[in-house]
């Protein structure tokens, strides 16, 4: 600006100004908009904080070791979540064995082998995206009609719930794995093929290992989602009074979110405290998994 001001004496034209020529209205509007976009993010963050604080405050009196070692009880002060935690672990095990390998396999096919022009592959593509957006309770209906009752008639057991949750997270695993595979440049596969590798050798030994961090991130998030799901389990008839840990695939069970729902829906406020304490445990598990997933993504992300 100083150089501009020196022109003053030399010329009669008014000095050039680089400050805004626009009125207060424009500046206010720009400022208000900046405030609005920032505020919208802050609202989300504030709710997150409120939600965690609320659970901590409500559940604090019951947050002790007994909560984890005890079984459900008719008395809120004695009630615990041991059987729920074990039930959840069993279901995670089934999801790991069923949904992850099938999901990764489907992703490998879609990204590396499928002829993307073929109508059936385009159809599968749309189907997978749609499955990812089907309400979770509809998966409960699927499990109810074919697994719990009807076709297989297994009843409300660990296997039914584990399979239903596996179906639920399968599209999530597929979509995340596809993105991870797509991020590996095609020159890696070209390089392997040029060395006389078959397509499967190139994919399984070069492309897939390079995509593992991304696949792991997506899989952890999918498992975390399975841990938190309650709606489909309700339909399968999982809301029961279970005071033992599951003994096998054919065993009755309860799970953390189901136990929480059970306690929340009771009129006795003492159970709300138990629910809040169980929520803290559930949040610890899911948030920890989210954190690991994000760390994994940042730590092993390959820049090509």
């Amino acid at each position, binding site marked *: 600006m100083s150089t501009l001001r020196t022109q003053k004496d030399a010329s009669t034209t008014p000095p050039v100004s680089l400050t805004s020529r626009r009125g207060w209205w424009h500046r206010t509007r720009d400022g208000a908009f900046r405030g609005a976009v920032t505020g919208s993010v802050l609202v989300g963050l504030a709710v997150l904080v409120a939600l965690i604080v609320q659970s901590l405050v409500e559940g604090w009196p019951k947050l002790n070791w007994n909560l984890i070692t005890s079984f459900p009880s008719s008395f809120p002060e004695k009630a615990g979540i041991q059987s729920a935690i074990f039930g959840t672990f069993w279901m995670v095990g089934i999801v790991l064995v069923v949904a992850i390998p099938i999901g990764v396999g489907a992703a490998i096919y879609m990204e590396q082998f499928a*002829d*993307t*022009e073929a109508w059936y592959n385009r159809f599968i593509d749309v189907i997978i995206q749609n499955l990812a957006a089907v309400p979770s309770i509809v998966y409960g209906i699927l499990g109810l009609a074919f697994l719990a009752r009807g076709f297989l008639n297994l009843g409300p057991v660990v296997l039914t719930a584990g399979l239903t949750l596996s179906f639920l997270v399968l599209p999530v695993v597929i979509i995340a794995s596809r993105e991870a595979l797509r991020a590996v*440049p095609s*020159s*890696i596969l*070209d*390089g*392997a*093929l*040029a*060395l*006389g*590798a*078959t397509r499967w*050798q190139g994919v399984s*030994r*070069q492309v897939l*290992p*390079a995509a593992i961090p991304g696949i792991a991130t997506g899989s952890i998030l999918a498992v975390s989602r399975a841990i938190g799901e309650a709606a489909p389990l309700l339909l399968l008839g999982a809301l029961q009074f279970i005071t033992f840990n599951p003994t096998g695939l054919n065993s009755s069970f309860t799970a953390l979110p189901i136990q929480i729902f059970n306690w929340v829906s009771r009129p006795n406020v003492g159970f709300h405290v138990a629910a809040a304490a169980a929520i803290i445990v559930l949040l610890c598990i899911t948030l920890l998994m989210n954190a690991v997933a994000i760390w994994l993504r940042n730590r092993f992300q*390959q820049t090509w």
Partner: protein
Amino acid sequence: MIERPMSENRGAVVMDEPERTREGSSDAGVAPEAGADAVLQESAKLAEVTRERRRQVKKDADAETVFELKDVAVTYGGSYAVQGVSMSIRKNEITALIGPSGCGKTTVLRCLNRTNDLIQGAKVHGQVLYHDIDLYGPKVEPVEVRRRIGMVFQKPNPFPKSIYDNVAFGPRVGGFKGNMDELVERSLRRAALWDEVKRDLKASAMALSGGQQQRLCIARCIAVEPDVILMDEPCSALDPVSTLRIEELMDELVSEYTIIIVTHNMQQAARVSDRTGFFTVAEGQDEKDHRIGILVEYDLTPTVFTNPSDPRTEAYVTGRFG
């Protein structure tokens, strides 16, 4: 790693004469340090002498034919990319394919190890004979073809693994049963990379410089004991010093392998190759007015650069046509 942006405008590369000194070739504008410059010039001269001698010998020898292309054309989804290519490529020679962008030289190269198969909608017409076997015959297995005909790509593409694993990958998938350590060392030596990496073969290949990565890719290619090495603009992403090392390497490898190189750098073709094929783009050859690549001239390199028979070749090599 110095990335040189690929100039689409061929006219940007100033070319007045085929015979040039080393300074003229570092056209990227990357000035090597003074010491390196002297070394560059010195070794360039030496290399020139050996190449000249080799060319003299080759000219008369009636070398064995490795590839015989008969009226080859490639279509992508029905429209022609390149048409009417007939040429025979001799054993233990370096053959350069040059020409402007979009002239189909890379497409032709990719026909030779059936890499075009990997592109959806690509179809190869005509005949590609490899030691008198039709590469596109019904029973030919592309995987077997690629084991004999290796390829080095435009941009170095090492696997995100250790140096050792990069070299060992090809032999492993090929069922190599011998001493892998020995094979890795031999391949790295032949690619003139051994001395630089021998201390830590477990180091990640991604940590190497661009030039080292490209030599690693060559080592990786040699490790499967191919018969032919195809190179698709192997130096276009490299600095002049690395480029020179690759060129020297090619010169040594040609005694054992047949090398076919696609290059956009005419000096490079003139420096390293024994024979040169010049491709260009013909406009509107089919009803849809597509641009189609054609082979204009194929001859001994000195002939193509000093005494071309086709005016289009002359225009290109003297820089009058981009």
